[in-house]
């Protein structure tokens, strides 16, 4: 009887299996028919890096500091650039990346001091070569002379504003010093050291995700 019981039990488990697969076969397929439909890319989707175009300057902000080139574990970034005639800001004149080598680790993005790198949304690119060099500056190249001109103007304006501010600050400081001196004289030497405490309590803004696209240009 135990023999028959075991056979029946085994048979029952087999039928259970059939029932489950039969039930599953009635459900809708989960296939994503890829080339016919576009895949949904998540916000964090990692693809080849690209330079961010900042609105206020209508261009990228790569200053050719080589931080990303140096940290890249795949050695796939090549940058050239530096001081540009006429403006203070340094500019990249060459930014190439070999996407065939890239391991999408994102260290370059995290390390960028001007936050000008981000992941692109490429997903269906194919390379025809073992070297798959991407020229990241290409889309900015035509605009570059205009940018330098605008940047020069901006810098001049900034310098002027700075000078004015400096003058104002100096003036204010002189006034404050004078006032303080007067107060100190009045209070007899023990001036309260207020004003420091609230400032140190501010949370550092460093916790933000570094790739938040709208990072302000310096």
């Amino acid at each position, binding site marked *: 009887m135990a023999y028959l019981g075991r056979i029946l039990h085994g048979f029952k488990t087999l039928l259970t299996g059939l029932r489950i697969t039969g039930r599953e076969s009635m459900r809708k397929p989960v296939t994503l028919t890829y080339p016919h439909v576009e895949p949904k890319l998540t916000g964090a989707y990692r693809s080849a890096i690209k330079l961010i175009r900042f609105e206020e300057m209508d261009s990228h902000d790569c200053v050719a500091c080589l931080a990303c080139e140096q940290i890249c574990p795949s050695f796939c970034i090549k940058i050239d650039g530096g001081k540009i005639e006429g403006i203070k800001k340094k500019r990249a004149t060459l930014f*190439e990346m070999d996407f065939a080598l890239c391991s999408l680790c994102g260290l370059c993005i995290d390390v960028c001091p001007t936050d000008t790198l981000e992941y692109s949304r490429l997903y269906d690119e194919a*390379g025809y*070569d073992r070297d798959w*060099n*991407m*020229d990241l500056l*290409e889309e900015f190249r035509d605009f570059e002379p205009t940018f330098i001109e605008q940047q020069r103007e901006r810098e001049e304006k900034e310098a002027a504003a700075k000078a004015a501010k400096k003058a104002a600050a100096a003036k204010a400081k002189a006034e404050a010093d004078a006032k303080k001196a007067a107060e100190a004289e009045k209070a007899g030497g023990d001036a309260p050291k207020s004003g420091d405490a609230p400032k140190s309590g501010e949370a550092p803004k460093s916790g933000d995700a570094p790739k938040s696209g709208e990072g302000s240009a310096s």
Partner: protein
Amino acid sequence: MTHEAPKDTVAPALDGLTTSSEPSDPAKDGFHVRHVATADRVVELARRFDEAGYFLEMITAEDRRGDLEAMRLVYTYNRYGEADRHLVLVDLSSEIPGASAPSCVPVFPAADWFEREVFDMYGITFDGHPDLKRILLPDDADFHALLKDFGRIEDAPPEEDPPERELTV
């Protein structure tokens, strides 16, 4: 294929086998005790750890010919249960080939592959190993890959200019 039940662990009796043994702070470096021993004590140490119910966590080596002028063998023992990691450092001669140590395989079969890997990567030989041959690198390799004087980037031949290519964006 009968095996005894796992032993209860006890404190390993290592008295006098090590050159030095000092407790360490596991919160800082992960080790509970650090030992320094000589090569001839390696098997006896393994036996003591075995008797105490510990398992051989890993064997590896370091190429310390640069600063210590020695090849260094590293054994770590641990136990199932609350961690009690013993680090055993064994300095061998700096000559490759030449540096050698006795094999722990008779005590811990786990040492088989670890020792083969050390031999493969560093060229350190283990006396008494049943089948000391390469494990990760190809059998016909003529180098030991993790030696510091092998495969340094600055030794690499200068890269040739790649042929003209089109840029894809």
